């Protein structure tokens, strides 16, 4: 990687190769595939949040001539009663199976109980009424406070808290405890001149991807069965379905359709294994779709959280100690992002004394899934709010306060390793110099600022690049494109090969046509798959040099390749990439390059956001009047899509902070399972999000890339929360800052 390198294509704003099909409606999404002989599946869902299933009789449905197959939990061969009896039950799959089709107990409103496939969608839905089911309704557990109280009903009788000093002896709704520490927390607070201590909470929110889950499946007993679905990771879909149904990986082919958003929520399976069971039983292709209500009630939202934060500092602005107790709702089954929440909460700060304790708590809500930087927005919201309050108390500008304590190269994180070169200070300096921060704060407006950190990951990616005889080519990758990554792959390959990006067609191949790729998530795709693209292109360059050498009767070492042209270093001869491809049949056959890598060296990412909010003190309504997102991208391959990631993260974070929340009745019934009542921000609600790209290169990537997809959702929660607090003159501790909550705060202050 070279910071001083001049790039021809990297950093340009090319047209995305998938754009035309998407804006003209030609692109095929999850629900767009129909096959001859196809039938439809429908799911019977629980009307209760917590209940034992006392009767489940499908015989009347089976007798219906329109019904061709029925699936229940007993159809999971790896975890069902027979597997439990004969000891072949697969480890770790029970929760996944029970979430997909309930086993004797339903654990949230909308929990799937059984599925029916019938000749039409209407017939499948109608036949659900023929399933005879009875419940023994139990008291639902709907909050962390309730779940951890001594009187709480226990959701899972065998669940013991992991991570306690002594092994747990009785079942609990707390599945795990985690503790991280650094330095001497008591001494740190003893050295502080000022301490802020406050409790914060955030609600259950949904990623709000526009495309609901859908799949079309064909079971094939003589060859690979086919699953078509919108997913962030089709190789992971293949693995999970294979595990659940006791199949070999080679017995399943998964095709990733175009995807209408995921944000972490499409990293698991819901419909796919059920549809495969129904297809196997019926011998027909099966299509299944979730309604928007199903998506809200029964896919994976982000955890609600409670955080207790304590931060101490000297009057000169040096933070001496930071402490957090974090509770995360996991939903009905263990596994919230409590771990990364604990690891990220104080990472923007270089502080000697830190202590964090986290708890993973089950409640009668849908099992959570990843949502952009899973776990970090909740904990860093709390930490950043407390930091802002502390800065104000000691009379320091929030940027200067952060610069004085900012994490930098060599900072020892609470989770262990020291940071390499990172861009937090550069982001803070960019914020300080930004037009937004230097503009006066308008009347009746509050301004908030917050930072955010996310690790970013690397992992396994595989890429093949095939060149055609005319010099055009195809980039075959296996990372579903949810944010414009195909354009980035094109540009990186073009940079190495010295050709126009548009001459290389990037495609996301199915699980049979490219080797394994980890899921598109963790901000890994442009970094890791991009690294594989570069390696595959470099493989091609070596071949081009060898082919040219053969044509000139020199050695490959006597050939240079630059900007798409091979140069004979022993003479004046030149051959373009297209020339060499045109003669490929005479020099050894067509040319392709490949790379199968496990990318290391993902560069952590920091961001700083600034938010101005106006509050109507009569109604509590909020208006974001100005917003700036600043983030370290390492190197922006395609600046427009990097800015898009910053803006998208900011908008989702603003929604989380201002309006979004799951609303449950006391019986655990979700009361706002639709976009009319679950209010995500619309374009008309917000100003242009000003994006400032900071580039502190990641030395592990050939072009300096850091992932950019996730960090941008972290700072908005506290930037918005602080702006609202400044506007109304009252501390904010609970999200969302919805009009009723703001009015209540205003009235309590009068």
């Amino acid at each position, binding site marked *: 990687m070279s910071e001083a390198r001049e790039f021809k294509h990297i950093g340009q704003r090319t047209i995305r190769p998938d754009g035309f099909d998407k804006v003209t409606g030609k692109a095929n999404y999850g629900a767009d595939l129909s096959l001859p002989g196809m039938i439809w599946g429908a799911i019977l869902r629980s009307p209760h949040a917590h209940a034992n299933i006392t009767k489940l009789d499908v015989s009347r449905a089976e007798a219906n001539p329109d019904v061709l197959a029925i699936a229940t939990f007993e159809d999971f061969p790896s975890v069902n009663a027979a597997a439990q009896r004969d000891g072949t039950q697969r*480890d*770790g799959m029970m929760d996944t199976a029970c979430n997909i089709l309930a086993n004797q107990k339903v654990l949230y409103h909308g929990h799937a109980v059984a599925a029916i496939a019938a000749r039409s969608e209407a017939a499948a839905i109608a036949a659900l009424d023929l399933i005879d089911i009875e419940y023994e309704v139990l008291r639902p557990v709907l909050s962390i406070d309730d779940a951890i109280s001594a009187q709480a009903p226990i959701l899972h009788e065998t669940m013991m808290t*992991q*991570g*306690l*000093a002594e092994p747990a002896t009785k079942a609990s709704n707390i599945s*795990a*405890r*985690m*503790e*991280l520490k650094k330095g001497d927390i008591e001494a740190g607070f003893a050295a502080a001149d000022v301490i802020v201590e406050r409790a914060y909470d955030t609600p259950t929110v949904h*990623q709000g991807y526009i495309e609901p889950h859908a799949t079309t499946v064909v079971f094939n007993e003589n060859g690979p069965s086919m699953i078509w679905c919108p997913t962030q990771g089709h190789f992971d879909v293949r693995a999970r379905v294979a595990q659940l149904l006791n199949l070999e990986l080679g017995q399943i082919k998964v095709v990733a359709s175009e995807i209408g958003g995921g*944000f*972490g*929520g499409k*990293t698991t399976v819901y419909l796919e294994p059920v549809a495969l069971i129904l297809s196997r039983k019926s011998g027909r292709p099966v299509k299944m779709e979730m309604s928007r209500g199903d998506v809200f009630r029964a896919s994976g939202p982000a955890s609600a959280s409670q955080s207790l934060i304590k931060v101490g500092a000297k009057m000169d602005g040096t933070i001496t100690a930071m402490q957090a107790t974090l509770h995360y709702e996991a939903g009905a089954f263990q596994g919230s*992002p409590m*771990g*990364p929440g*604990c*690891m990220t909460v104080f990472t923007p700060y270089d502080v000697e004394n830190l202590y964090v304790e*986290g708890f993973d708590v089950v409640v009668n809500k849908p099992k959570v*899934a*990843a*949502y*952009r*930087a*899973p776990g970090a927005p909740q904990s860093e919201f709390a930490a950043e709010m407390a930091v802002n309050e502390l800065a104000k108390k000691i009379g320091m500008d929030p940027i200067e306060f952060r610069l004085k304590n900012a994490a930098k190269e060599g900072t020892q994180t609470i*989770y*262990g*390793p*020291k*940071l*390499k070169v990172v861009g937090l200070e550069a982001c803070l300096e960019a914020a300080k110099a930004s037009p937004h921060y230097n503009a006066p704060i308008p009347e009746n407006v509050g301004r908030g600022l917050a930072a955010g950190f*996310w*690790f*970013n*990951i*690397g*992992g*396994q990616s595989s890429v093949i690049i095939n060149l055609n005889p005319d010099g055009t080519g195809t980039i075959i990758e296996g990372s579903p494109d949810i944010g414009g990554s195909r354009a980035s792959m094109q540009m990186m390959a073009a940079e190495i090969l010295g050709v126009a990006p548009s001459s290389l067609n990037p495609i996301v191949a199915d699980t049979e046509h490219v080797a394994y790729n980890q899921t598109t*998530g*963790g*901000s*890994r795709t442009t970094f890791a798959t991009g690294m594989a693209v570069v390696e595959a292109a470099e493989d091609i360059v070596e071949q081009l040099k060898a082919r040219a050498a053969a044509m000139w009767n020199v050695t490959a070492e006597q050939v240079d390749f630059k900007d798409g042209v091979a140069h004979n270093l022993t003479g004046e001869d030149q051959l373009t990439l297209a020339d060499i491809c045109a003669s490929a049949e005479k020099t050894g056959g067509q040319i392709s390059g490949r790379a199968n890598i*496990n990318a*290391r*060296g*993902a560069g952590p990412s920091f961001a700083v956001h600034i938010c101005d909010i106006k509050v109507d003190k009569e109604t509590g309504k909020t208006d974001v009047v100005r917003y700036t997102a600043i983030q370290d991208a390492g190197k922006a391959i395609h600046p427009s899509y990097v800015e898009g990631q910053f803006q998208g993260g900011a908008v989702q974070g603003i929604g989380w902070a201002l309006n979004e929340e799951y609303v449950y009745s006391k019986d655990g019934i979700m009361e706002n399972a639709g976009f009319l009542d679950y209010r995500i921000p619309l374009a008309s609600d917000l100003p242009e999000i000003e994006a400032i790209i900071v580039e502190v290169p990641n030395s592990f990537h050939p072009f300096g890339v850091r992932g950019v*997809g*996730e960090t941008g959702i972290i700072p908005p929660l506290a930037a918005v929360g602080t702006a609202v607090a400044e506007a109304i003159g009252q501390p904010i501790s609970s999200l969302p800052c919805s009009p009723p909550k703001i009015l209540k705060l205003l009235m309590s202050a009068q």
Partner: protein
Amino acid sequence: MEVQLAGILSQAAGGARCVECTGATIGELLQSLVLRYPEMQMHLDEGVAVAVNGEIYRDRRDQPIPNNADVFLLPRIQGG
């Protein structure tokens, strides 16, 4: 070498935050950890990451570990 155990992983080692292990690669290190602390296998099955001199590795069992390296065993970091 000394291996620092983060959070819940230390409980699998009887509460120890730092344990002595051997191994020239990440794979050998994890093997040595499980031999000494069998409860660690559950966490390895769920997935862990290993930080060597500040660099975090997932699924890189062939990665060499230099002498006197700072080594941390971490819960696996996923993403959204």
